[in-house]
């Protein structure tokens, strides 16, 4: 229901959203690498963050996992805040999901995004029960130190074609619309 080209374009749109929203500074480095299915899970964290982008013909589930360590805390919690890391990251991830949703809304009318939801990380092993057309996992490394995992899980009820993302990475940087939740 989704062509290889569409999967590639979806991946590009997701990478664009990650680079535009998960980095704190413009000159931060960001490496995104595919994680092969069946690779050992290096994340010991007990929770994951789930966001769904829905249209009439598909639902795209975006999952983020971070490692709660001093490096990640220092990166995402620079400003004095009373919030927990997962709360701060939920806002960042929400912006990332919003950015991807906006990109897809240029091609699919009546698209909408859910609020983020925190789940037990063991839930990851049941993604196939959602009968996805396509699941892609990525390891994201920021400034060679901060590590997180991002997953795309596309479930379609009709064949869909996803076009290449618009503009450049720079065009979207800092323009992430704040998604309230």
């Amino acid at each position, binding site marked *: 229901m989704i062509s290889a080209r569409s999967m590639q374009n979806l991946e590009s749109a997701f990478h664009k959203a990650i680079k535009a929203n998960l980095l704190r500074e413009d000159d931060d480095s960001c490496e995104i690498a595919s994680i092969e299915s069946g690779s050992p899970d290096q994340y010991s964290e007990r929770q994951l963050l789930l966001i*769904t982008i*829905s249209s*009439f013909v598909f639902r795209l589930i975006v999952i983020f996992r971070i490692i709660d360590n001093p490096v990640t805390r220092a990166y995402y919690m620079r400003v004095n805040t009373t919030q927990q890391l997962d709360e701060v990251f939920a806002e960042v991830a929400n912006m990332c999901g919003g950015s991807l949703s906006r990109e897809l809304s240029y091609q699919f009318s009546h*698209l909408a995004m859910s609020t983020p939801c925190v789940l*037990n990380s*063991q*839930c990851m092993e049941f993604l196939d029960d*959602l009968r996805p057309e396509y699941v892609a996992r990525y390891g994201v490394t920021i400034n060679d130190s901060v590590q997180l995992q991002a997953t795309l899980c596309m479930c379609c009820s009709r064949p869909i074609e996803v076009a290449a993302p618009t503009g450049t990475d720079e065009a979207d940087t800092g323009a992430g619309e704040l998604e309230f939740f």
Partner: protein
Amino acid sequence: MNDDSHVADASNGAKRAELLRKAENVTRGVGDIKTLAVAFERWHEDLILMTAQSRGLSLIGEDLSQIARHMIMVSINAAIEAARAGEIARGFVVVAAEVKTQAQSVQALAGSMRKTVDKGELLTAATFQDIQAGGKMMMAAISGLEAMVQQLHSELAENTDP
């Protein structure tokens, strides 16, 4: 103006008035559909309860698993102590072995329960989010439709006014 044109004007006026009346009905209908938002909020609240319920079950499964682990340790210690006591505690060795077997069964059951709960939690959350996003999607579509109907209504009203 002759009688024929008077009749034609009257007929057109009646048609426009009828169209205007229908447009008003559609506007009211679209307004009614917008109360769907109330149903979405209700589903939202129900699904939050279901998610909390699922998390509660998950915690019970973890507690159960921990109790089973503890029972296994106790049964092992009991078996060691019974072995030390010798022939007199031979029956207790059998009891300790049975306790260990039962504890292992409970542990396996707790593991299975946790998997079922984890799967349920994912399916519930994914469905919840799909409904939530779907609700926003429908409300946006209805608002677009409402704007179009209002536009149509305004145009008809302008053309109907004497």
